């Protein structure tokens, strides 16, 4: 089992979610995060004092998948979240040791 963690631009969330749903991916967790890579932040001015804010708002999606689905999902996210401009984000794939469904106690791929 694998976790696919995708950092994407917030306004792309609906596009990515829709594409994943159409593919049959049944769930995900998202969080609102801040970050920066090459994309610059912005400047804020309060009463004559200037602040450079490096962090840019992003959305992090976490999806747990069967190993077999990973490549297709990654390719789908890349396509749906892409704008061609700096700051489109990154995807990380990591192994998952165990998955348990709280309601029933099921484990492993049955719990995904």
């Amino acid at each position: 089992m694998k976790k696919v963690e995708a950092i994407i631009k917030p306004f792309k969330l609906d596009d990515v979610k829709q594409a994943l749903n159409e593919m049959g991916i049944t769930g995900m967790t998202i969080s609102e995060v801040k970050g920066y890579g090459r994309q610059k932040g912005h400047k804020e001015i309060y009463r004559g004092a200037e602040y450079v804010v490096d962090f840019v708002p992003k959305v992090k999606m976490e999806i747990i998948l069967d190993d077999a689905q990973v490549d297709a999902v990654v390719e789908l996210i890349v396509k749906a979240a892409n704008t061609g401009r700096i700051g489109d984000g990154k995807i990380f794939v990591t192994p998952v040791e165990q998955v348990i469904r709280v309601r029933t106690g099921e484990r492993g791929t049955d719990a995904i």
Partner: protein
Amino acid sequence: MNSGDIAWMLTATALVMFMTPGLALFYGGLVRKKNVLGTIMHSFISLGVISILWVIYGYSMAFGTDVGGFVGGLNYLGLSGVGLEAGPYSETIPHILFAAFQLMFAIITPALITGAFAERMKFKAYLIFTVAWTTLVYFPVCHWVWGGGWLGEMGALDFAGGTVIHINSGVAALACALFLGKRLGYGTNAIAPHNVPMTVLGAGILWFGWFGFNAGSALAANESAAMALFVTQIAAGAGAVAWIIGEAFYQGKPTTLGAASGAVAGLVGITPAAGFVGPMGALIIGIGAGIICYFAVVAKSRLGYDDALDVVGIHGIGGLWGALATGLFATAAIGGVDGLFYGNPAQFGIQALGAVVTIVFSFVVTAAILKVIDVTVGLKVTPEEENQGLDISQHSEVGYTW
């Protein structure tokens, strides 16, 4: 007695009272989230503390029978003799109503100072400071100008408190900022407002209440009040526009916070002038306040002191501009006295003298008070408390649970 005057003064009293929670929100939005309650508390509790002082001895010190031109006597201790009958400060409203109206000014003045030491003062020390400062600085200066003291006798014009309230608190704020020193991380870390909409709401409430502050200082429902209300509006609006024009040219963007700040600066500027100038004078006063106070705030970072919420730049400098501008633009047609531009240069001199003496007195006495409190109780919170925030460290409270 005149029921029209009484009705208006009752209303004006309530309007000015509303300015203190308005100030609480204005300041509250400007600090970091972890300090929002501590900041609001400073203003809000003033409503209680100063009311108690006022009843016991404050009104007497400010408006009691003159002692040496410096302070009022104790003849009104416990508000004895201050009741339902009119006089001596107004023949058309009950004495107790005059005392109520003036109380609202006494409440908001120490609250203004709190912006200078925001985010780093011990609450216990703050309570002692506010009692000491109001007693030793506000009550005397109020007496000098309005209570029969030397400044009013000399002919200084201060319709609603440019000197008594704004120069006074602005200078005290400078003493506080210098004495307490900078906040941790000031100058290196970003310290930004956490809720600008709250600040703008506060500014709106202040603007609204200021109609009571200025027009109510006519002490009657009359022509003077009408003009005072109108010039208040003009100065506030002009101040907002002038500030954001200054911003746009100097820093590239007009900001909402700038508009709110400019409006307050304009209101400060017109405060001493409100019963003495006409609309065109108010326009110039408002524009002047917006530009001068904006650059005063910009200059602060160059000068290096941490006046957290710009009390010096807006109330101190704005009040000074207003006091001097009153000496320029006062016209007998409106308030019975001419200023420099109407052929009476002496008035400008009187205004300047009043401002200078108030500046020196307020600074020196405030510094002395700060020293005594620091040596006994300690003024500043510990670095750990400052990092944790006043809300938790001083009040065990959290402003927002999200």
